[in-house]
């Protein structure tokens, strides 16, 4: 009886001890979230199926989230303790994510590289373009899409004004004003029928994607992302703000009251637009616009050759995921970012992998070298906690001056204080 009891006990012990072993050997599931970009989704699914076939120990749960719901859906999922293990995050809110300890440092070996340096070496302009996911000298992501803006000219509207973009496109902001005047058409009442050029006024993030780079060209910088301080009441900001203000109120060449520049350009009501990325090409084709692409203007007395801000999407791994899941997630990220040519051809998404940039196909591309050249000399927008709140405050300050007619002497010091307060509060959270 005793022997039977011992035998049964040992058998039970064996079975119980085998359960976690068997469980531990089961496939690891990686929850991957991407925003909806229809041309990319089919390619994602195809590559994920290939990855799962090559890695039977890893299951991938692929979820797409509409772009406009992304921030809310991701934040609420993370708040509830769930959310994705691997996600495709834009650089805008990345400062908040880093500040809240959500991001896991990259695991280079799991991602298929010898070490972190090998990742930087694998990308053209690796130091400047991967900087979007570097915090305190640690890399936290692999880029899925790198972007900056260049200028698109509607060649037909330019020709109608007797101008040729190939020879007449302005290289400075000062020249742009003169060219824009030649391209502007007004009706008998003085109302603008066609704008020569206009800025993007409708969304606050453009204060950091366009306005601040213009300040940086002059040697200033509104936001110090390392020390989290603002320098807004400066001669450089005054010069750029003065230019934007004159654009609206003195030269009357455009302004926030008009149709958003991108929409107007695609409708043929704007001759030049400087905030489309390379992803704008299919939209030009659909709209039937005969276009050419040109580098951004700089100031005549610019001290920095930067164009508009670089921004990007990066694969990032949730620091709350288990080490096995994190490793599997980086492996998947490494695999998916190893197909830059396919993502560019199918979805128009640019990754500056040397294997792609140094290929014949890239060299033959008519527009990408311009974008890559601009990216190479540009800087990322500030990746700060409270990014959207700072942008909102900057837009409010801009509008107080340009729309409300308040003096820069009053607004800029107040704005600087307000942004400093926002940065201090966001950093303390």
């Amino acid at each position: 009886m005793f022997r039977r009891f011992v035998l049964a006990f040992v058998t039970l012990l064996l079975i119980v001890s085998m359960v976690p072993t068997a469980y531990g050997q089961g496939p690891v599931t990686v929850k991957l979230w991407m925003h909806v970009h229809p041309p990319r989704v089919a390619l994602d699914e195809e590559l994920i199926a290939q990855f799962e076939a090559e890695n039977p120990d890893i299951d991938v749960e692929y979820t797409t989230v509409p772009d406009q719901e992304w921030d809310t859906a991701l934040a609420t999922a993370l708040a509830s303790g769930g959310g994705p293990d691997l996600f495709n995050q834009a650089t805008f809110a990345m400062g908040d994510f880093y500040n809240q300890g959500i991001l896991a440092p990259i695991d280079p070996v799991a991602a298929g590289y010898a070490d972190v340096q090998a990742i930087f070496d694998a990308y053209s302009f690796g130091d400047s373009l991967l900087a979007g996911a570097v915090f305190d000298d640690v890399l936290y992501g692999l880029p899925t899409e790198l972007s900056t803006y260049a200028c698109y000219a509607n060649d037909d509207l330019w020709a109608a004004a007797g101008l040729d973009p190939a020879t007449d496109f302005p290289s400075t902001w000062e020249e742009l004003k003169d060219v824009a005047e030649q391209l502007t058409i007004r009706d008998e009442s003085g109302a603008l029928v066609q704008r020569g050029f206009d800025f993007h006024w409708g969304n606050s993030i453009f204060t950091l994607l366009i306005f601040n780079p213009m300040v940086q060209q002059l040697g200033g910088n509104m936001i110090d992302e390392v020390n989290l301080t603002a320098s807004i009441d400066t001669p450089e900001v005054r010069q750029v703000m003065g230019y934007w203000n004159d654009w609206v109120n003195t030269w009357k060449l455009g302004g926030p009251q008009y149709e958003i520049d991108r929409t107007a350009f695609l409708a043929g009501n704007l001759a030049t637009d400087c905030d489309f990325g390379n992803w704008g090409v299919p939209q030009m084709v659909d709209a039937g616009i005969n276009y050419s692409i040109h580098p951004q203007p700089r100031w005549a007395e610019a001290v920095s050759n930067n164009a508009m801000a670089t921004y990007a999407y990066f694969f990032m791994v949730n620091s709350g995921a288990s080490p096995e899941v994190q490793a599997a997630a980086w492996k998947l990220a490494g695999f998916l970012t190893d197909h830059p040519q396919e993502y560019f051809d199918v979805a128009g998404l640019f990754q500056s992998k040397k294997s792609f940039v140094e290929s014949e196909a890239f060299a033959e591309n008519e527009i990408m070298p311009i974008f890559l050249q601009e990216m190479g000399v540009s800087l990322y927008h500030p990746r700060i906690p409270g990014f959207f709140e700072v942008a909102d405050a900057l837009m409010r300050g801009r509008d107080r001056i340009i729309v409300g007619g308040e003096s820069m002497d009053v607004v800029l010091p107040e704005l600087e204080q307000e942004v400093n307060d926002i940065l201090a509060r966001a950093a303390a959270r």
Partner: protein
Amino acid sequence: MQRRQIWGLFFVLPTVIFFAIFFLYPIVSGLLFSLTDFTLLRPPEWVGLQNYADLLKDRLFLKSISVTLGFVLGTTVPVWILSLLAAKVFYQRFAGREILKVLFFAPVLPSLVVVAIVWRILMNPSGVMTTLLRPFTGLGEIDFFNNPTLSPISMILINDWTTIPFYMLIWLAGLTGIPLELRDAALVDGANRWQSFLRIELPLLRPTAVFVAAISTINAFQAFTLQYAISPGRGGPIDVNTTMGLLIWKYGFQFYRMGDASTVSVVLFALILIVTILQLGLSRGEQYSLE
């Protein structure tokens, strides 16, 4: 407990559960979140009443109160009066009344987002509205949405355009409920139409008035959609359209300040509660009944 009471509870239970999950739980959660520092990205941390103290120094919040009160004023009193007037017009018999009534009611049917898009096109600086007003203004362009003075007025006008027909229908139902005999008796006694309206109809419309006032005020306090869909930069320019409803969204989902967003929503809830209680209190007094 009697068998009958148990069955009663059983039948009420689904509603109670639904209310508890979808109303009570969010309200209590919101109240609790307002006492925390909650970034959405990390679990909330208890801070007591700090968020409420901070709000008193928050310029954006203080401005949102004045913006909201302005919007409430512009979308309640004029709406009550104009919708009642419209109801009085449609209460009369005239040729084509039913067709006109349907046309008048049409703005209520599309969603507010669609209304916003249509009006954004119509009120383009050199759009249809500018053209219609040109004989009076002489202006080639009118900046309806980016002018800090015109913009809130434009929001109010668009809102009133879409809500007046709805409240007109409520008033019309109230007017229809008043027996003709009472008006006839007043006329026989020498009352003119104005006196009949003032002394007979208006007192008997008190329950309708209370309903219209309460619902329109609550809706106005919760204003969000138009400001979100039309105003430049969502709430601009210079935050002249940042209502408390919009500020809650900004704080919670744009700035990752869910604790502050919850605090604003609690304050908004309290404001609506106070105003509604005041309205109900003022509506008491001499009651008129048809019985």
